[in-house]
């Protein structure tokens, strides 16, 4: 897809400075990339109040156990959503799936029972690719995005890691779901753990 669109990828490029006059990006190891229009994402950091609380790490996230969201420093503190340092995307899907598991676990914890559930790092997201098409990816801590179908094997209706118009329509439908189901906290019929059913592993990994 990148080749088709003549998109060049320069990996491991850490921007040290931008020369606005020469319209050039310069990396720490002195590589230079010219630009006409620059769209850049600044370093993603947690909230300032986490830094002042003394609970945060160097990025203002609270270090937690990645399966239970419990602080690694204090047994009686949990951090959810973008406050935690889970080693995955700061994505709405991660906040949602982890909160599903967390609620059940936390209720057990306050009742003095052991926490039996573990968050697996499940995340998914639509990626709009233009011209009325999109992709969908679904992954967790251990499994990279794989091709296949979601949420049901073989029938989908959404295709994983492939570009089609159905994924784009799914994204538009999700806008409604977001406001009317997710935000009011209504249950949605999607499991919080990632499923390998419906996914195809590349042949070399079998």
């Amino acid at each position, binding site marked *: 897809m990148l080749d088709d669109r003549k998109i060049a990828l320069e990996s*491991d490029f850490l921007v040290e400075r931008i020369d606005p006059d020469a319209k050039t990006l310069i990396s720490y190891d002195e590589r230079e990339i010219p630009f006409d229009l620059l769209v850049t994402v600044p370093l993603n950091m947690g909230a300032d109040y986490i830094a002042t609380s003394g609970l945060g790490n160097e990025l203002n996230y609270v270090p937690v156990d990645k399966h239970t969201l419990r602080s690694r420093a204090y047994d009686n503190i949990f951090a959810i959503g973008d406050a935690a340092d889970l080693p995955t995307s700061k994505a709405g899907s991660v906040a949602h799936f982890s909160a599903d598991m967390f609620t059940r676990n936390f209720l057990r914890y306050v009742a003095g029972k052991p926490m039996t559930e573990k968050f697996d790092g499940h995340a998914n997201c639509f990626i709009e690719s233009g011209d009325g098409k999109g992709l969908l990816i679904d992954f967790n801590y251990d499994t990279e995005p794989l091709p296949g179908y979601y949420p049901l094997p073989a029938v989908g209706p959404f295709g994983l890691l492939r570009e089609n118009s159905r994924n784009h329509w799914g994204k538009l439908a999700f806008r409604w779901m977001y406001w009317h189901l997710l935000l009011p906290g209504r249950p949605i019929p999607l499991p919080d753990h990632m499923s390998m059913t419906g996914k195809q592993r590349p042949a070399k990994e079998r």
Partner: protein
Amino acid sequence: MATTTIGGRAVHVDPEGFLTEYGEWDDDLARQLAAQIGIELTDAHWKAIHFLREDYRTQGETATIRRVTTLAGIPTKELFTLFPKKPAKKMAYIAGLPKPHGCV
């Protein structure tokens, strides 16, 4: 898990060659690992490597570049000089720690 022989010693590694057993590493092995990727370790390298080892022991995760610059006080520019092109991966490799992971 696969094993490989580095400097006459059998160690456990993942498919990309990163050590998987924290306890199998020592300074001598680090020199061998560094030599495999064309790096000769100086005091400046050791400062970063030993920080990574100690940080992993307490945190259970390989430190990010940001963490090394903030907590060990080594500027990003210097890390790119010491471990050219891919400092995060090269430091982890030499320190015998898991490859740092991106978000996807």
